[in-house]
């Protein structure tokens, strides 16, 4: 479904991704864990074309999405094909990124109207159905500022789902939330995974990774150090750095 080949990305002299390769199969939930600064978020942003890698390839559904060599300069070109592949993926950000000047309903209905060309009533019906699905039916006409963090994040999941993406990317979507609001967002994500949505999730929620992931990937220093089913990564990590990281994050519980 997504195939990443030898992706490298630098910010100035800092190598954020080193030759990262990755396969995500249809219906899989892949969870990426690792210390801050390990390149998890950058990998996700490269997958959807928000960052321009120095070199490497990304294929989505067998179609070439990104192909860069060291000779390529400048940002990615937003061709028709690029945009079509890009919007076949949905992404949810840590800081919600809802449009503050629009109601929750408009936030969700705008892209179906303008991008997919749905009529206003069709787009709104779709938006209302999605808001009901994430438990926000009664917040449709509010502006995002009136919502709690957890509600904002669920609204932003609904917005991403409105384009009926084949893949959903989640970039530390619970990191900005108060602890008591985290589970309401995670349960929406669990439901999505149970419905068979292909997902790539960057998170610090090890419980979620353990329960929902088909594959857990451990990243450190811009590389994938280890990947496997959660039972293996959490139960018997092979890499000492994986073990050290898990010891640190799991002792709190």
């Amino acid at each position, binding site marked *: 479904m997504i195939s990443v080949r030898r992706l490298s990305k630098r910010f100035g002299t800092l190598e954020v991704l080193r030759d990262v390769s990755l396969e995500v199969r249809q219906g899989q939930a892949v969870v990426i864990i690792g210390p801050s600064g390990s390149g998890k978020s950058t990998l996700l942003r490269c997958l*959807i074309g*928000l960052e321009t890698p120095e070199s490497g390839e990304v294929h989505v559904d067998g179609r070439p999405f990104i192909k860069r060599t060291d000779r390529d300069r400048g940002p990615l070109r937003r061709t028709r094909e690029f*945009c079509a592949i890009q*919007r076949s993926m949905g992404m949810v*950000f840590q*800081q919600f*990124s*809802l449009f*503050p000047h629009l109601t929750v309903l408009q936030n969700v209905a*705008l892209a179906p109207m303008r991008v997919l060309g749905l009529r206003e009533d069709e787009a709104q019906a779709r938006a209302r159905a999605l808001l009901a699905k994430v438990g926000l039916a009664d917040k449709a006409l509010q502006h995002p500022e009136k919502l709690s963090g957890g509600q904002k994040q669920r609204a932003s999941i609904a917005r991403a789902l409105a384009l009926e993406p084949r893949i959903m990317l989640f970039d530390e979507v619970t990191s900005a939330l108060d602890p008591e609001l985290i589970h309401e967002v995670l349960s929406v994500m669990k439901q999505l995974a149970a419905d068979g949505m292909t997902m790539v999730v960057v998170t610090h929620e090890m419980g979620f990774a353990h329960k929902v992931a088909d594959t857990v990937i451990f990243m450190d220093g811009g590389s994938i150090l280890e990947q496997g089913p959660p039972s293996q990564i959490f139960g018997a990590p092979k890499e000492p750095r994986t073990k050290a990281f898990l010891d640190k994050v799991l002792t709190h519980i």
Partner: protein
Amino acid sequence: MSYDWAWRVVPRALPVLLEGLRLTITITLVVIVLGLLLGILVAAGRLARSPFINKPVAAYIEFFRGTPALVQLVWIYYCLPIVLGLELPSFASIVVALTLNVGAFFGESIRAGIQAVPRDQVEAADILGFGYVDKMRFVVLPQAFRIIIPVILSQSISLFKDTSLVSTLGVADLMYQARVLSTQTYRPLEILTTAAMIYFLLAFPCTVATRMLELRLARARH
């Protein structure tokens, strides 16, 4: 100090001053509208990727921000007819000069407002598949306007006052009438004080309204 104020000249001068005010307001409004149109183009040009567009636009902005408005007015009034060989009516020539001046300032304010929209908003619009026009129309500009409008308003108030410069070119605005009346009546202090009051009575409420709007917009954000 024993100046003998003679305010009785004012009632007779007032109709002429107000006639001048009408022209001042006309010039201001015409220049605001044209300046906004130019400013949008300037902002777009400044944000353009191609250096063949953004460099000349930047040069234009710096030129008009870096030279006095009076010099620009006089230059376009006297020199342009010689350089281009075409005679502009004085109203047209001052409108051109002020529009070019204000367009530079408006353009920079609009550009700054657009760039102040958080990056994640643009990214969210990109991955939702919006084209450039829709992204601007539905996501960037509505948020940028909340930042831009107070700035544009306060620059427009400055413009209203700066139009007094056109009096030096014989355009019969409020300031011009005040100067003429000053010499006719030998009462410059009374007349100029009255002119100043007229400017203030219009500008001050606008300043207050702008500040209130600014506060409201700031509260409405997030």
